[in-house]
């Protein structure tokens, strides 16, 4: 039955695209995990913070306006200018780098050589802090993010496929952009970590902080670098997701969609994030589409995790993760 087949194909394609969107968030996790063994819970909030900052800068919002107004009884809101998207994005990247420096300086530096769970916890503290900060700085109301990315159904694909198969496929143009951006990001990050000494240093740091220090790798530098990159990746994710749903608190919850991706691909693998995203995206969409209606729907959240779990039972380190070394 070609109808059904086309539906399945369409769902799979869209699943793959959704997977790419998850992978964008997962990438940030991977980078930080690779570089420091830190499971960065704050990645989702970083994306939110980046998106908030971007919108704020673009619209010329005065940071902390609400706080200032509350304290001084003023009534400030906007500087009165708007910035072109490119400038705002560049400025936001600078802000994210600054943030990375602060994070290193005030948090990570003091937690060298601690157990992973402690570091994880610290990132949760950070997530809280940034969430509050983002809201105080830019306000909690929903904001539109528009950097000129195309959205909506791609007419071309629809038409072309309709002419070919007699069935027009639905592909969101935003998803196509996301795929291209993700591909570019992944390739450049992979080149970076494979072919530069910093890439090697990253992995060394993840294995053993003390030993890394002892050979002269500056944890501080590595961390600032990695957190800046992760911040910029978060900005990209924030732009993509923000264009889709507006910028507000829930953006930070996309982290939860990235976790199964991460787990399936392996916490330490950049290509793993993408492959994991594709598998999860496609799997959960197909399941929701075909099985979901039979069992009441809204299965995506748990199905993604269960799917990842099934993979893990066979490969406990994820598809591309580094082998877990078990020796005595």
């Amino acid at each position, binding site marked *: 039955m070609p109808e059904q087949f086309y*539906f399945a194909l*369409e*769902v799979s394609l*869209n*699943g793959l*695209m*959704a997977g790419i*969107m998850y992978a964008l968030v997962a990438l940030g996790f991977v980078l930080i995990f690779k570089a420091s063994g830190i499971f960065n819970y704050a990645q989702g909030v970083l994306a939110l913070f980046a998106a908030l900052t971007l919108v704020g800068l673009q619209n010329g919002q005065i940071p902390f*306006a*609400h706080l200032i*107004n509350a304290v001084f*009884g003023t*009534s400030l*809101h906007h500087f009165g200018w708007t910035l072109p998207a490119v400038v705002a994005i560049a400025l936001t990247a600078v802000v994210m780098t600054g943030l990375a420096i602060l994070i290193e300086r005030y948090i990570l530096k003091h937690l060298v050589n601690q157990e992973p769970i402690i570091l994880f916890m610290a990132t949760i503290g950070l997530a809280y802090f940034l969430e509050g900060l983002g*809201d105080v700085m830019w*306000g*909690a*109301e*929903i904001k*539109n993010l528009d950097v000129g990315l195309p*959205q*909506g*159904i791609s007419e071309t694909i629809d038409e072309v496929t309709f002419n070919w198969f007699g069935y027009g496929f*639905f592909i*969101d143009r935003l998803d196509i952009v996301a795929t291209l951006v993700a591909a570019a990001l992944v390739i450049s990050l992979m080149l970076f970590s494979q072919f530069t000494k910093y890439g090697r240093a990253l992995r060394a740091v993840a294995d053993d902080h003390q030993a890394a220090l002892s050979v002269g790798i500056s944890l501080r530098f590595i961390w600032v670098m990695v957190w800046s990159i992760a911040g910029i990746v978060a900005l990209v994710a924030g732009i993509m*997701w923000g264009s*889709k*749903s*507006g910028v*507000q*608190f*829930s*953006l930070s*919850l*996309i982290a939860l*969609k990235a976790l199964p991706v991460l787990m399936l691909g392996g916490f330490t693998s950049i290509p793993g994030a993408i492959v994991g995203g594709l598998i999860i995206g496609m799997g*959960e*969409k197909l399941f*929701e*589409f075909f099985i*979901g*209606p039979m069992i*009441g*729907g*809204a299965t*995506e*959240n748990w199905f993604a995790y269960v799917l990842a779990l099934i993979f893990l039972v066979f490969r406990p380190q994820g598809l591309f993760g580094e082998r877990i070394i078990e020796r005595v």
Partner: protein
Amino acid sequence: APAPAQDLHFPSLSYRTGPFGAGGIPFADGYSDYLTLMNERDGGIGGVPIRQTECETAYNTEKGVECYEAIKGDSPLILQPLSTGITYQLIPRVTADGIPLHTMGYGRTSAKNGAVFSHIFNYPANYWDGASIAIKHLLDINGGDLSGKKIALVYHNSAYGKEPIRTLEELSEKHGYALSLLPVDSPGQEQKSQWLQIRRDKPDYVLMWGWGVMNPVAIQEAANIRFPMENFIGVWWSGSENDVLPAGAGAHGYKSLAMHGTGMDYPVYADMKQYVIDAGKAAGAGDQVGSVLYSRGMYAAMLAVEAARKAQEIHGTAEITPAMMRDGMEALEITEERMAEIGLPNFGPAFAVSCENHGGPGRGLVQQWDATAKQWNLITDWIESDLEVIDALVAEDSAAYAAEAGITPGCN
């Protein structure tokens, strides 16, 4: 009972943070601004000043309970938590503590039955009314016949979102449409599969019970698959500016229910501007005035104020207690003249509350989004819900509750 207060305490259980903050902010602002207006312009209600307090719940039930416990000793006249979850927590508590709870268009629908839910009010309309109104509207456009039509419900996968299902199922039997259900998990950032299902099944109409980020994403996705927007109707919680703006032009023609008017074309805004906004006394950032949810907050405050007046009137004292307030709410009567006096002519329906009916008339409107003008336009007159179906459901559900909670229903 707490001693009569020197002032009238109107707490606001608001949420300006968390995943639903974007919806909570305008509501809280509207609620507060109207009460401020009363103080500034009239010196309170019946000469007694209003005291406002605000407690942040973040849409979180535990925080809601904490807020409740913190204020319940402070003679709160009325509580409006704007959260179905918190409402469920509070129903037994307020009943035991004798504090009235007003859940306007949300909460537990069967609370309409005042014989069981003595302290809970959900006038002027509830979810089941909403479901029925939407179907009525569809009946209207279809010349009274929906048989053979396919209707899909996209809903927030929570207590809130599930509310209309029973009603819609009952109505589908009555009107012969096919209903399909598409739950979306909170928060609802990813709805690809739901909308691809819609694309495949091609329902004639899509209804939506959404809140928070789920709304704009759904509207965006609907636009993406080029679902005809005029066939897409959201409940009144899915019909604010925040929901449609992100989709830009794609959202043009999207409809939603409304239980009150919107926009700033009401005389009350003249006073509002004079006494509150220009006086720098606006709540929050002051940038929400006139939006849909702001109007709703204002409407909620207005109804509360009217009930307080009523209470003052029946009990012959200006310094009313929560118990008196309850009586005022139960005796509340909103007429068109009164609405006009207040400066909100035809903003909401005229209705009278009684012990048997805490739920008001169950009337609603349909509004449609004009993406070019960026505004909501009312496109129908008041639509009555199908009380025949709904009242039966209310009776059934409230009886079940009464049995479970050991309440003997009755009006005193």
